[in-house]
């Protein structure tokens, strides 16, 4: 009972902080941090989508930036080619759909491999797409492209940082809830079973390939949403969003936050970006510190930051 209550106390405090954050930042005269908080939430969404693949399904992908970047480019291209369609209700679902379809294609090929080969083939696909966008001169080539304004959402002014933040927060909460349901569902249990012992799952009669493919499509679609939101936050997209260091960053976030844990994506993205924010003020070589942090987590808290909380709760 106390476990239950303490857990809800944590959750309640977190939700309350998230809800009043823009007012809090304004009151402290730190408006800049509202956009920062949106950035954290978008990365958290991206990391949570990857966590479904890596943490739950055991498929270590180093090409997640492909789905994220393509989602962002969908918003950018729609804004340039068909500004009348750049309503959030059209452009964002389009980004989700295109990234999901891309994940279907990449997944159908990559999932024929396992382990290190899966890492390499997902990396290769993402790098190919990176070069595709570098060479797309019509959309800025390697300079990327600026987006004139954020997508339009009826009744809301997304140019306002606080409004945009709340939209991102709502979408993040919705996706996290859906991921929680999915993880605890029949499908989620099969996925976890495949991670544990794929040969056994095959011999029980599960067509594991199909389950893994559906997981990649869901994961890629959510990553596409994260990309669409990031394109809106920055009003700018560039091929760098598809570059492999982005895939690496989000993988680091997942490991930092907690593989397979529901809150791992948020904890990892929050810790990573906060650390970056604070440490870059001290030294441009902040990634040395990040490396130390990652080593510490891998050796002393293999369940990640979210795992530390889980253990204390128990």
């Amino acid at each position: 009972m106390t476990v239950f209550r303490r857990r809800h106390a944590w959750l309640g405090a977190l939700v309350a902080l998230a809800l009043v954050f823009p007012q809090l930042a304004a009151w402290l005269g730190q408006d800049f941090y509202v956009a920062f908080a949106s950035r954290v939430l978008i990365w958290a969404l991206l990391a949570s989508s990857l966590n479904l693949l890596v943490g739950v399904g055991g498929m270590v992908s180093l090409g997640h930036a492909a789905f994220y970047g393509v989602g962002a480019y969908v918003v950018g291209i729609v804004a340039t080619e068909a500004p009348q369609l750049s309503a959030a209700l059209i452009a964002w679902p389009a980004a989700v759909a295109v990234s999901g379809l891309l994940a279907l294609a990449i997944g159908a090929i990559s999932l024929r491999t396992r382990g290190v080969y899966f890492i390499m083939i997902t990396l290769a696909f993402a790098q190919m797409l990176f070069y595709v966008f570098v060479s797309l001169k019509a959309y800025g080539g390697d300079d990327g492209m600026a987006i004139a304004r954020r997508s339009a959402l009826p009744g809301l002014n997304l140019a306002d940082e606080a409004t945009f933040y709340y939209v991102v927060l709502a979408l993040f909460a919705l996706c996290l809830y859906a991921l929680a349901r999915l993880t605890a569902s029949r499908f989620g249990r099969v996925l976890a079973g495949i991670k544990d012992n794929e040969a056994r799952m095959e011999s029980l009669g599960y067509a594991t390939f199909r389950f893994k493919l559906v997981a990649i499509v869901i994961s890629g679609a959510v990553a596409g949403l994260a990309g669409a939101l990031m394109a809106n936050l920055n009003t700018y997209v560039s091929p760098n969003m598809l570059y492999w260091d982005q895939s690496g960053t989000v993988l680091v976030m997942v490991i930092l936050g907690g593989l397979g844990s529901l809150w791992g994506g948020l904890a990892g993205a929050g810790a990573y970006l906060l650390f970056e924010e604070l440490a870059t003020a001290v030294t441009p070589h902040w990634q040395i510190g990040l490396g130390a942090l990652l080593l510490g987590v891998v050796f002393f808290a293999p369940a990640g930051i979210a795992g530390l909380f889980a253990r204390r709760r128990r």
Partner: protein
Amino acid sequence: MNEILLETRGLAKRFGGLLATDAVSLTIRRGECHALIGPNGAGKTTLVGQLAGTLAPDAGSVLFAGRDVTAYAAHKRAALGLARSFQITSVLAGFSVEENVALAVQAVSGSSFRFWRRVAAEEELSTRALAVLRSVGLERAGGRRAGELSHGEHRQLELALALATRPQLLLLDEPMAGMGLEESQTMVELIAGLKGSHTLLLVEHDMDAVFRLADRISVLVAGRIIASGTGDEIRANPEVRSAYLGEEDAL
């Protein structure tokens, strides 16, 4: 009893220069307990792999329940009712014992492409899982992590996983492997209890168990079936006696 459930025709598998399966034609009738014996290296596990679909034969065919399943992947054969237990324990180590079996039950009760409803709240899965656990004597271990079980309990869980899919045919690959005397006795009793209600293919080293349990026995030597018959026929077969590595005491 006379209906043929599983049949292989001229099955062959070669690993480099080694002919691990050599023109194996085997028939298993519905309802029987058929034992496959043979000295170490005879190719028993290779043959089981080809029956279960984890290994593709180079030649020949596998027929199951009247259907040619040679080209079917392991999961497709399993879905048709061909369940196997592994010689080397293979369970979901990170799952609880009950979750292991519930996942096996889930494989044969409706679509698993359900994304919203909590699987832990599906009572029919846990009810059936508990019933299967009871039938193998693991009902008290349901809440434990499968990775923490003793060797004997692992073997029982292996059997439970295979049983939970309500198979037409159970391929038991050395269910007694590595067990102590007492654990073996328990396993023999368990398998004896399955006879009649299940069709079994038992791959086993323990000759006492084989002669006790099997209705028919096939002897595999160097990839070839050299004899098939009842226990008495096998015992009396001179070719078996001479080929079986001089282990006459065992027979």
